[in-house]
């Protein structure tokens, strides 16, 4: 029996990958074990998904640092004997990468990139990383501090981005300045200003084995997007050029673990421009399992030192996000608030998932 801990349980307006990861693992015919949800807030919606998570534990926020994270994981491990962890959030990954070896010493496996690899694919270094892989990317300016008058020369429209989250398309220089200040006040510097390329958005995922080889790759297209450009209805596709691009990035970085790329297919020149490389599975990851290629389960196999058995995905498989009500009770909420943990074997309530 395997015990895997999974983060990223928020399933609201901007869902995190965690529940999709958990569903993929649970639905694999080879799976037997326990799934432990790791959350940062008692109101992360997925903590109430009693048919997906067996237990939930709260973690300290990432700003508390990697020592605090290690201490908490060790405490949880003393109760749960975790075999593997699959972190799914950009902001927590630096901490998990930093303590990866110490977690290994405790007997907890992860399959993550090194700190250096993580930094090389960051938004701030995207242009350089893409150039090494012979992959096109929009021109990107990295602002380490408040903008100067130089920015008046910036071609418009442009996209202003925080280092981890958030992006805004701006059409005037006044908007550009406002967006930079807003982004900096939320996320700090650096703030990125990226060339806006008109076209359709495509995404791809891959699992790198750490030697430059790709265990599997899958492409998809967003058919319907939310206001924040999140994919609401998506379809798997078979696009050799997009797949070549993600494999080239995995090879160049010798990437270890999950990766997602976001790319624009330019209306002007018909080429793909990669505008983000995400170091984790995306919120649409369950689509991969539905299309016949179970990336999360393959991650688990890699983490445990097994040979992943991943099939090729089918194109033309669609998903639509939907909002569901997860019913819980005060006892469950109280358990999270007061003890920082929740166990579904002991709390009887109805849930929709």
């Amino acid at each position, binding site marked *: 029996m395997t015990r895997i801990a999974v983060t990223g349980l928020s399933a609201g307006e901007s869902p995190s990958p965690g529940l999709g990861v958990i569903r993929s693992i649970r639905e694999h015919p080879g799976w037997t074990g326990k799934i432990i949800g790791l959350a940062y807030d008692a109101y992360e919606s997925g903590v109430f998904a009693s048919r997906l998570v067996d237990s939930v534990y709260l973690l300290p926020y990432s700003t508390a640092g990697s020592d605090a994270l290690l201490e908490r994981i060790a405490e949880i491990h003393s109760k749960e004997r975790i075999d593997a962890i699959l972190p799914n959030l950009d902001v927590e990954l630096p901490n998990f990468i930093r303590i990866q070896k110490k977690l290994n010493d405790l007997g907890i496996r992860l399959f993550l990139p090194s700190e250096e690899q993580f930094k090389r694919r960051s938004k701030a270094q995207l242009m350089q990383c893409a150039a090494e892989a012979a992959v096109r990317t929009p021109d990107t300016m990295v602002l380490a501090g408040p903008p100067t008058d130089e920015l008046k020369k910036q071609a418009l429209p442009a996209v202003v981005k925080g280092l981890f989250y958030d992006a805004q398309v701006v059409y005037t220089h006044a908007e550009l300045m406002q967006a930079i200040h807003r982004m900096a006040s939320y996320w700090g510097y650096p703030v990125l200003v990226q060339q806006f390329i008109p076209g359709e958005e495509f995404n791809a995922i891959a699992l790198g084995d750490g030697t430059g080889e790709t265990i599997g790759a899958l492409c998809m297209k967003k058919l319907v997007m939310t206001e924040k450009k999140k994919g609401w209805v998506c379809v798997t*596709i*078979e696009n050799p050029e997009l797949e070549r691009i993600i494999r080239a990035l995995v090879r160049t970085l010798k990437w270890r673990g999950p990766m997602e790329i976001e790319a624009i297919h330019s209306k002007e020149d018909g080429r793909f421009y990669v505008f983000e490389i995400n170091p984790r599975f995306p919120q649409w990851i369950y689509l991969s399992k539905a299309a016949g290629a179970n990336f999360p389960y393959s991650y688990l196999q890699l983490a445990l030192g097994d040979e992943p058995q991943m099939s090729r995905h089918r194109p033309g498989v669609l998903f639509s996000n939907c909002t569901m009500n997860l019913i819980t009770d005060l006892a469950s909420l109280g358990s999270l608030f007061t003890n920082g943990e929740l166990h579904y074997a002991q709390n009887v309530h109805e849930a929709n998932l």
Partner: protein
Amino acid sequence: MQNLNDLAISESGLIFDPASGSIAISNPTGIQILRAICEGKSIEEICEELVREYQEQPEVIAKDVEDFLIQLRNHGYNHD
């Protein structure tokens, strides 16, 4: 230009391009034309079949088929 043979065509009239993810809907006649092209029939043969089936003037059919082919080209598909 993309090849029409790469498209997935459903009985319900949905046309899916597995490379780009584009989805389009066509009526049964459009699907009939698409399938005939993929089977290797010439445009002239397709027009003749449609004239027989719909008992319509050849020039009307030819115009309708040409309009359909223009729509396909506008979507990036070459029937040749």
